[in-house]
């Protein structure tokens, strides 16, 4: 998608794919989709498709990696070989290793890790289809999977991409926008309640003003992601509740 001639990334308030500057691609989240995992989630965000499984807390092995004061978060972000235009090598690349590191760290702030010493919480992410913004899609799905696993948390983690294309600050860049000559890509994750920033990366050339403008969009975007996450979890509960209704206390011996 290299374009020499000038492209209008925003024209009459509309982007190349018809979205407004502050509009997310459609998000669909489903919790509890994998049978063996302690918690799981499936997420579609535009063309992005992500499956996340959570296992744990479980004993961290080998023993020397255990932390006697808290649980470890082991986040594995992987892209399926067919999830990108050219086949990707199945071997985790440097990008995947870095994303795994910062994403796991982003979740740490949300989880009550100190309640589970010597354990690990394993998060496995598989990107099945991609079109820019997979790390924030994965992180948003991962926090739903953690809640589905019943892991105690301070908050969900809501993540979104913001940035710039063709001189315009926009929310949730797609691949075409990310390939703009002046593109700036800023993935960010927040705890929705306290607005704490738990993941922040950026590349591209940005002024401080543009950064501040992006933050406003990011906050708005995270709120919408949070609503989708909350809805997915509530839906999961209502399904389970249908089966569980009326007998809440009947079993007390």
């Amino acid at each position: 998608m290299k374009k020499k001639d000038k492209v209008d990334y925003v024209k009459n308030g509309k982007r190349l794919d018809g979205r407004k500057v502050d509009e997310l691609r459609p998000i669909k989240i489903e919790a509890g989709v994998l049978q063996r995992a302690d918690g799981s989630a499936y997420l579609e965000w535009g063309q992005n498709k992500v499956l996340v499984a959570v296992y744990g807390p479980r004993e961290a092995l080998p023993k020397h990696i255990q932390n006697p004061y808290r649980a470890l978060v082991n986040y594995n972000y992987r892209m399926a070989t067919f999830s990108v235009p050219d086949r990707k090598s199945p071997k985790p690349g440097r990008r995947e290793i870095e994303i795994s590191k910062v994403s796991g760290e982003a979740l740490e702030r949300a989880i009550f890790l100190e309640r589970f010493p010597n354990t690990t919480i394993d998060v496995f992410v598989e990107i099945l289809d991609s079109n820019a913004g997979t790390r924030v899609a994965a992180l948003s799905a991962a926090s739903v999977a953690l809640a589905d696993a019943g892991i105690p948390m301070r908050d969900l983690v809501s993540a979104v991409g913001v940035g710039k294309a063709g001189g315009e600050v926009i929310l949730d860049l797609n691949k075409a926008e990310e390939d703009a000559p002046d593109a700036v890509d800023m993935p960010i994750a927040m705890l929705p309640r306290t607005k704490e920033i738990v993941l922040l990366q950026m590349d591209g050339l940005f002024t401080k003003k543009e950064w501040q403008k992006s933050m406003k969009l990011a906050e708005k975007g995270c709120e919408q992601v949070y609503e989708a996450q909350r809805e997915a979890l509530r839906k999961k509960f209502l399904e389970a509740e249908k089966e569980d209704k009326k007998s809440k206390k009947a079993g007390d011996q």
Partner: protein
Amino acid sequence: MEKETRRKKIVVPGELVTEERKRIGSHVFVDEGKVYADSLGISYPDSSTASVVPLHGKYIPGRNDLIVGIISNETFNSYIVDINSIYHSFISKDSVRHELKRGSIISAIIQNVDEINEADLEDIRVFFGGEVIEVSPVKVPRIIGKNGSMLNVLKDNTGCNLIVGRNGWVWAKDGNLGLLVKAIRLIERESHLSDLTNKVEAFLKDEKGETKK
């Protein structure tokens, strides 16, 4: 039973449970004077205690719980017991008369739980043979029933020896195990029905009648 009348609210982790000063129950935390949920579950706004009943989660050992465990390994003076929780438990080899091996099934009472939910076991019983049926720990109360009523129905109609562990493991031996599993799955699936004990009893009688034919 006050069930339908109580107001309920589904909460996700980090969601406000109450701003009022209330007794703090389980699965909540306090931040700047307000109470928030730490798990996906339901809260009861009218209750005098701020707490959340989680949808699911791992079995967290509680004192005096009866659990079913499986020996997973041994050291030179103890057995390591898988209790279907986050941590393993240990029992001293002196506390059991029999020699156990990986896969041996026991039941035990949780004598004590430390601050990181590691459990000490007592009143160890060793089982020879039988099977372990897995159920969701949150459904265990349903399988026992009020005052053990459901448990009795299951025992009487399947002829099984039965120990229902709070940790979601059910040990069963002899009798009609296939029928028992069917009945347990029915309880799990249809636990929303009122009068479940009678329904399960009818189901069991019906099934038995059919198999006799």
